[in-house]
């Protein structure tokens, strides 16, 4: 028998804080990508509604709250964050466990937008990218999922193996922004 | 005749004795051969037709001014470091021609054999470069394998300690180097002109006349011109010109950017290329760092580059040799590259009798200028391919024989 110990992607790397911004690792619970099969999106939507009272998010949007959230995750795919996937989803969609595939961090603070403006090639200012908006885009040279979860708070996901680069890039930008005033 | 003595004499007499480097003749009604395109390849073709094959009743038809295409929009590198049969012998020949070019043309094109160093960053890359270096040696060209210490001796300014992809070594090609690109065009132009070739500028070809499968001449902005032989030497516009003859080519046009910095005192003495991202650099005699990277990757005729690729090139420079960081980019430009499915060029006849093609140079066209003209002239004059250019067949893609995919990226035009 063996007792395996779990380790978080950003263990030992976070949190970090600079004037105006703070970066912490977040535990989103289970992550499951849900890709409805052909013609099944409505059925999946109903199943999601029944299981979690969450609507199937439109492109570039997220639904739900901190504990249970659906994040649009790309073409024909959403990411369920929080609960384990309901069995009812199984027949209408490809479900893939992604719980361990992503490093998840939360960047917050009144300079968070400025920090991300150094790394992300889309307009993340609140007027354009409000709470509940999400995007698949780049952060530096990494593919990322970026979601605004609050007035000055972003949820950022990149591949787990890139956690060191994620923290490095964000930390550098946080320092540079802080040094500006 | 150009010489130091002549400069001295002219200097003493008010520099009043200089004359045009080439004439501006009116087009004749008929030539033995017409070359469409007054770039490096077209001009060298004309020169060698006249010089090697005594064909002097020929014309070069240029849409703009002599040397207005990629001969003036490149990073000026010359080298013979190809490894696949077909390429190997051709570029070897070209380098030999470069080595005697200035004396041949009586024009200082500043051929500078300062050495080309290709860096590698893994065991696998080293093995591939050893394969290449051994092919170069088997061809009779020079190649030397450098270990990291060897690289450090030549290029002490590289970041050996904190770079993303550590330097495992390099392949030194000592006879490679650079040349002053415009002067190559002008030297061939002057040389061809002296041999009687008509260089006709501002003369766009608007049609290619073909009767019963035989080429008869061309229609131009300056009127029709009859010709027994016509060559299309218009890299960057090959598809458009070939379409005038009803040809569809295995070519997609892509922009390749290049950059030059402000003048600096000597700091980079070789041509250096990075193996983990396209980046290559040398320093011009004027002091500017001349560097470039990969294609912009989308089909374009716009002769200008996009920002993401420019940034990528600079990032590569910063990880490899961060001492260049405070050099300032003065100018960027984009050349239009004929990209083929295997990354290698085409010098061949077409199904139309008397119509020839010289195209598909991807981004290796500059170094090929002497040998391309030499080989095309041979083909036009004799009807058979020159021994160094037999591999550049147009039909190799269709039948799969003799593909020269040096990068191993396959039949996607922009990946070479």
């Amino acid at each position, binding site marked *: 028998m063996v007792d395996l110990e779990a380790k978080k992607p950003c263990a030992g790397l976070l949190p970090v804080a600079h004037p105006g911004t703070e970066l912490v690792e977040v535990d989103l619970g289970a992550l499951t990508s849900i890709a409805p099969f052909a013609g099944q999106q409505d059925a999946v939507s109903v199943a999601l509604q029944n299981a979690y009272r969450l609507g199937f998010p439109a*492109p*570039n949007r997220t639904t739900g709250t901190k504990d249970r959230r659906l994040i649009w995750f*790309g*073409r024909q*795919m959403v990411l369920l964050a929080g609960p384990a996937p309901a069995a009812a989803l199984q027949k209408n969609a490809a479900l893939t466990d992604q719980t361990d595939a992503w490093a998840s961090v939360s960047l917050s603070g009144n300079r968070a937008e400025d920090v991300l403006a150094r790394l992300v*090639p*889309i307009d993340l200012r609140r007027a354009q990218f409000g709470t509940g908006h999400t*995007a*698949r*885009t*780049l952060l530096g040279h990494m*593919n990322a999922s970026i979601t605004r979860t609050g007035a000055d708070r972003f949820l950022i996901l990149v591949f787990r193996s890139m956690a060191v680069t994620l923290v490095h890039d964000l930390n550098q930008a946080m320092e540079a922004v802080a040094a500006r005033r | 005749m150009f010489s130091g003595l002549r400069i001295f004499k002219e200097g003493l007499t008010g520099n009043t004795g200089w004359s045009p480097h080439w004439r501006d003749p009116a087009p004749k009604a008929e030539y033995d051969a017409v070359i469409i395109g007054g770039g490096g390849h077209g001009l060298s073709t004309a020169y060698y037709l006249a010089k090697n094959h005594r064909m002097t009743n020929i014309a070069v038809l240029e849409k703009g001014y002599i040397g207005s295409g990629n001969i003036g929009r490149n990073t000026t590198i010359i080298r013979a470091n190809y490894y696949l049969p077909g390429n190997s012998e051709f570029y070897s020949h070209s380098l030999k021609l470069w080595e005697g070019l200035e004396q041949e043309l009586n024009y200082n094109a500043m051929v500078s054999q300062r050495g080309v160093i290709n860096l590698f960053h893994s065991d696998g890359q080293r093995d591939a470069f050893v394969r290449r270096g051994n092919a170069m040696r088997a061809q009779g060209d020079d190649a030397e394998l450098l270990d990291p210490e060897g690289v450090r001796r030549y290029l002490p300014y590289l970041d050996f300690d904190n770079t993303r992809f550590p330097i495992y070594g390099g392949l030194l090609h000592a006879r490679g180097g650079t040349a002053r690109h415009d002067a190559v065009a002008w030297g061939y132009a002057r040389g061809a002109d002296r041999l009687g070739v008509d260089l006709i500028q501002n003369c766009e070809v608007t049609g290619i006349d073909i009767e019963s499968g035989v080429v008869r001449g061309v229609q131009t902005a300056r009127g029709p011109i009859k010709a027994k032989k016509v060559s299309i030497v218009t890299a960057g*516009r090959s*598809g*458009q010109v070939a379409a005038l003859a009803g040809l*569809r*080519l*295995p*070519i*997609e*046009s892509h922009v390749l950017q290049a950059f030059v910095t402000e003048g600096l005192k000597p700091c980079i003495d070789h041509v250096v290329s990075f193996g983990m991202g396209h980046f290559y650099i040398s320093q011009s005699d004027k002091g500017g760092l001349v560097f470039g990277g990969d294609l912009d*990757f*989308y*089909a*374009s*005729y*716009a002769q200008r580059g*996009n920002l*993401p690729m420019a940034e990528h090139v600079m990032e590569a420079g910063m990880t490899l040799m961060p001492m260049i960081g405070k050099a300032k980019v003065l100018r960027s430009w984009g050349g239009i590259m004929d990209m083929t*499915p295997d990354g290698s060029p085409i010098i061949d006849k077409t199904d139309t009798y008397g119509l020839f093609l010289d195209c598909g140079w991807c981004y290796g066209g500059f170094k090929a200028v002497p040998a391309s003209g030499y080989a095309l002239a041979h083909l036009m004059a004799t009807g058979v391919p020159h021994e160094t250019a037999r591999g550049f067949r147009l039909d190799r*893609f*269709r039948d799969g024989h003799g593909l020269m995919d040096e990068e191993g990226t396959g*039949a*996607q*035009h*922009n990946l070479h």
Partner: protein
Amino acid sequence: MRLTCPLCGDRDRREFYYRGAAVALHRPAPDAGVAAWDDYVHLRDNPAGETRDLWHHEAGCGAWLVVTRHTVTHAVLEVALAQDEGAAG
């Protein structure tokens, strides 16, 4: 250059991978013959003007896109999902 992804919206060129002419959508039958396959894999119209080509929103939603654009001006005229343009189109 910027492309408007039908799913993600207006995005920087750096998020996209470029493949080549949209001719790749129309794969010949295995027995279509040498010429048809040579056309498909190698030969290109390569217009200096309007063209259709294939891009992948690799750093975005993952959709393959058919982009209609101008190769001289770089004007982007239309962006559509390849899934809607493909075999049917």
